[in-house]
């Protein structure tokens, strides 16, 4: 069994609403039942509501596998980088520190590294990964290129990432503005080193207007809407 070639995993972190549905659905995956392998990061919780769902990007030349002293991480023929082989993994943690996307997780008590394997029990039979199945905003999407093109006419998928001098190609695709993708189809991750998340405030205005004292503190005073 292998993941069908015409199906791809697309991520658009800017669509993530931080609902955690993916985190919980991930625990249902049979290859790591009970353990969520997806990272849902609040980028700067105090300042912003921005969140990013991070799954394994399934690199073409996986750094985690290359630096593994036990040769425990293998990439299957369909390009999916599997979790560490249980007989081989010696739990050194190299993969955890080496992964440019910060994906693998080490379980010291069981002496094993586990990570997202694109729900291989599902994708290898043509089903969607659990996270993509439940994502309400489709920040995580699993389907064909034609489907994503139709759904997101303003975006285009890219699979190249720059980390300093290193460029990494991945199996998982990230959605970027179509114009950017046509000029230079890559995401320069380390260029964001000094970036801060965009401040956003959501004003629901569902309550009737109440009289507000003139000297009342306005928490949204400096927040651009």
């Amino acid at each position, binding site marked *: 069994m292998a993941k069908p070639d015409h199906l791809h995993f697309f991520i658009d*972190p*800017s669509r*993530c609403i931080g609902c955690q549905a993916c985190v919980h659905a991930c625990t249902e995956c*049979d*290859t*790591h039942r009970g353990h969520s392998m997806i990272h849902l*990061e609040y*980028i*700067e919780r105090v300042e912003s509501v*921005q969140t*990013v769902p*991070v799954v394994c990007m399934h690199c073409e030349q996986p750094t985690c596998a*290359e*630096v*593994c*002293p*036990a*040769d425990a991480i293998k990439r299957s023929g369909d390009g999916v980088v*599997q979790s560490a082989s249980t*007989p*081989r993994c*010696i*739990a*050194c*943690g*190299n993969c*955890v*520190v*080496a*992964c*440019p996307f*910060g*994906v693998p997780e080490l379980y010291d*008590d*069981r*002496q094993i590294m586990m990570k997202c394997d694109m729900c291989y*029990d599902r994708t*290898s039979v043509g089903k969607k990964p659990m996270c993509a199945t439940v994502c309400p905003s489709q920040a995580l999407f699993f389907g064909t290129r034609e489907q994503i093109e139709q759904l997101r006419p303003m975006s285009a998928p890219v699979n190249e*990432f720059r*980390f*300093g*001098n*290193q460029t990494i190609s991945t199996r998982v695709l990230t959605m*970027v503005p179509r*114009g*950017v*993708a046509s*000029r*230079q*189809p890559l*995401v*320069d*991750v*380390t*260029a*964001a*080193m000094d*970036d801060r*998340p*965009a401040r956003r405030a959501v004003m629901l205005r569902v309550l009737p207007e109440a009289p507000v004292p003139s000297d009342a503190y306005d928490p949204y005073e400096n927040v651009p809407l």
Partner: protein
Amino acid sequence: MPTVGREHVRASAWGLIAAALLAVLIVVGSRNLQHFDAALVGYTFATLFAAFGITYRYAIWLQRPPTRLYWRRGWQVFATTRFIRNIIELLRRVLLEFALNRFIFRRGRARGLAHWLIMWGCIIAAAITFPLVWGWIHFRTVPGEIDVYRTYVFGFPVQDFHVESFTAFVVFHGLVWASFLVIAGVMLAFRRRMIDHGAVTLQQFGEDLLPLILLFAISVTGLLLTASYTWMRGYAYDFLAILHAATVIVTLLYLPFGKFFHLFQRPAQLGVGFYKESGTRGEQQPCVRCHRPYAPALMVRDLITVERELGFSYELAATPAAHYQHVCPRCRRALYGLAQGALWRDRVATAPTARGSDT
């Protein structure tokens, strides 16, 4: 014409040395082959090949940059810091993690039990079979006492026991007890491989099922030999002996290539444990972005060395961090989101200033 790499030549040399050393030990241990059982010559050659193959693969494995570095580091840490304490700790870990399979039981009780039964069955079987095959142990009747056996180890008399004694029963049926353990373990392992959806998805015939089939075949054919001479007056004994020898020899030839090689890789877990422990006591690497410590500084330095050897170039030229390894995993995940978000913010910018267009 393809040329054989240097690492293969070196590994072959180590393999040949190991096989030659074993051959010498067989000759010496069996007192110039005096106690060597010629009927077991097939097993002997299979073990010689296995010694070559295992050493060859181990040597190739050790030449990978990360393996080489951590193998060296493990020994350095073990031998140079707190040596006596390390010895005690080593014994503790060998007992808990290897003899009791604690970490495998934590992965799953049935899984742990299956592994524990198979492991101890194989250890007992190997401890009995190899010394017998190599002529290191043999039994003889004591002159003048036809019903007393004497055990010889490397040609030296060690122990006498009566052929009808409990000791004789336990010793002569050692392989039977071992096969009971292995068969029970194999059954449990097969059960998991049939009903666990995760295991079913990932398992491969050569890597996961073949080893179990081989172990089962060895155990069952071994038991049939006992059944033949105990209850069936030696019915089909010769055929069963050849069949049993074939299963064992195939397994020995398979040892260096498949899943069984983890027996020789797994001790690296002990070295890595000492390395990690030493790293925890030492300086910690703070993340250049969030300034929180996230890994031992030694580990990060070693990883940078390994990445450079492997041809990765995560150096950061235009930022405060010298190397991307100095960013913690959590910040790496955040950077991915920030970088993608920035492209959407910058999409209205002109081509030369938009982040995705910088080259």
